[in-house]
């Protein structure tokens, strides 16, 4: 076998220029595939972290039916048993309780339908980083009857710090909800939709306003690894008290999943085209090699080399060529991806604004995962195998006399 490998290695360097061109095409394909995939995965991760991590959370526990019909009648009674069951899961590292509802917000001059979010300010801040987004003022005190207003909503209602905001809505079980609260802070939320419609207050104040003492609409779960949101929720289903469900972010934000999937599909299409072109390059190289060496192969068979051994040698040449290109592509891509992973590209101008409007930080981050390096290697291996199929089959059917006459 080592002799076959030695011959294969020497054979690929018989036509140095052709080998370098073929290996280079694999190199560039692997390089672009890794860089592009790294950018895609980094962007998805950033998008998810911004859109999901900052508000919805990677997983939530809700009452059954709340996600489809967000009325307070579908709110949940958060019992110690429920809390124990959730915290017993090894991937759950924290809980962020919330009470969400809707109300009409009014100032002296305007009114608007808004979302009212009751939170434990410190707990919420640890997840949503609200304090980082504060434009002025502070977060509401833990149990105080005061509100934090999103920036564009405040502009619309023409209110600022110290002004009073009136909230009018319907509470739990149809009780009317009315209250007046001082504005203690203005916050800029990344999502334009949320930035124009959210009012934060303390959990206790929200429960009191909506006459739903002790009730919650959702409990956001903090996970040790957001990638495990789906299996964690599936596992929690068995231990949660009846009437409660655990939903991963993929179910809470299906539109984001669709957006990522459609972007992935276009990325895969580009990669597919790239690899098909490279595949034909490898195929062409193999055909040329075979045509040039047909007579030589005939001689090898004449002196006693079996067809399988011959096919193994040519297969080894292709594997060596593919490995050479793949390793070179990985070696070229790794430092670039490593650098961009630690130093994401900062976007400016309209592009940055467009991303801000989507509620996403205007950067192009690069993911660094060994997985996609391995995948590129496997892809090239599959490509080499497919491209080699026809030439190798033709070796297995090689007629010695015809080959010797070539």
């Amino acid at each position, binding site marked *: 076998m080592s002799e076959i490998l030695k*011959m294969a290695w020497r054979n690929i360097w018989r036509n140095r220029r052709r080998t370098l061109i073929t290996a280079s095409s694999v190199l560039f394909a692997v390089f672009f595939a890794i860089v592009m995939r790294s950018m895609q995965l980094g962007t998805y991760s950033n998008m998810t972290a911004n859109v999901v991590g900052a508000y919805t959370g990677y997983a939530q526990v809700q009452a059954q039916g709340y996600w489809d019909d967000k009325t307070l009648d579908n709110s949940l009674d958060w019992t110690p048993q429920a809390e124990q069951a959730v915290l017993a899961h090894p991937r759950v590292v924290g809980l962020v309780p919330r009470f969400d509802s809707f109300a009409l917000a009014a100032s002296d001059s305007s009114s608007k339908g808004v979302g009212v979010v009751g939170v434990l300010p410190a707990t919420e801040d640890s997840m949503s980083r609200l304090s980082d987004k504060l434009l002025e003022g502070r977060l509401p005190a833990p149990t105080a009857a005061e509100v934090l207003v999103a920036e564009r909503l405040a502009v619309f209602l023409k209110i600022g710090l110290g002004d009073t905001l009136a909230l009018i809505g319907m509470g739990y079980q149809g009780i009317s909800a009315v209250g007046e609260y001082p504005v203690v802070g203005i916050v800029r939320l990344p999502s334009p939709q949320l930035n124009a419609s959210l009012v934060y207050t303390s959990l206790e104040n929200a429960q009191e306003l909506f006459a739903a003492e002790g009730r919650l609409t959702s409990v956001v779960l903090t996970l040790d690894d957001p990638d495990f949101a789906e299996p964690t929720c599936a596992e929690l289903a068995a231990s949660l008290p009846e009437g409660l469900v655990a939903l991963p972010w993929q179910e809470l934000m299906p539109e984001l999943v669709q957006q990522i999937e459609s972007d992935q599909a276009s990325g895969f299409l580009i990669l597919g085209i790239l690899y098909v072109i490279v595949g034909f390059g490898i195929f062409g190289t193999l055909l040329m090699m075979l045509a040039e060496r047909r007579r030589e192969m005939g001689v090898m068979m*004449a002196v006693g080399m079996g067809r399988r051994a011959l096919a193994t040698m040519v297969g080894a040449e292709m594997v060596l060529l593919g490995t050479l290109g793949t390793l070179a592509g990985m070696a070229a891509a790794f430092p670039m991806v490593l650098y961009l992973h630690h130093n994401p590209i900062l976007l400016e101008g309209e592009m940055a604004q467009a991303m801000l409007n989507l509620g996403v930080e205007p950067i192009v981050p690069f993911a660094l995962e060994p997985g996609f390096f391995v995948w590129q290697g496997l892809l090239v291996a599959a490509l080499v195998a497919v491209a080699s199929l026809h030439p190798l089959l033709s070796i297995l059917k090689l007629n010695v006399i015809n080959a010797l006459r070539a």
Partner: protein
Amino acid sequence: MNVIEIENLSKEYQTPAAKVRAVDGVSLRFERGEFAAIVGPSGSGKTTLLNLLGGLDQATAGSIRIAGTDLASLRPGQLIDFRKDNIGFVFQSYNLIPVLTALENVEFVMQLQGRPKAERRARAVELLEAVGLGERLDSRPGQLSGGQQQRVAVARALASKPQFVLADEPTANLDSRSALTLLEIMERLNREEGATFIFSTHDPRVVAKARRVIWLEDGKVVSDKTQEPTI
């Protein structure tokens, strides 16, 4: 003792124009240690006969028995193994493996036989020294002259200690001096190694060296004579 027995051998080819009978009812016997030339004009069937003898091509009719084995009874894989162990080839245009050195080319067949490295190395060196290339062991074919390459090819053909060596016009591409040197080497190795040499040729120098001359015309044996080498 007969090494090769050919009985009523025929080979037909279908060309677009007509059916061609390249070998037509040939029957021959070769004994161990023979140094025989198959002579005839172009198209007389010399190369086809050698290809049939070497198991590279299949006969349309008749049989070839080598040391008691009927070539037609062997499956393709068995035929390759049979060739590897029993037949050495020398081709008109040398046909050495260009990525291997002279030494590695000679070792190649022994390697296919699975012989130990030390044994094949010693045999290859011995044969290359016998053909006068002891100083060129590490040269690749591209670094050797045509005559030297053909001498490596002869060494390669004998490396596996075959029962016989088939040489298809071995001197056709060589100048007179190289051709003569090659013939002398082949003759000496024929004596020393005891292998039967059968070569096709229309080179009078080769014919003069042969101890048996078989004339072919239109695929038929028209003459089969033993002679005293005249050069």
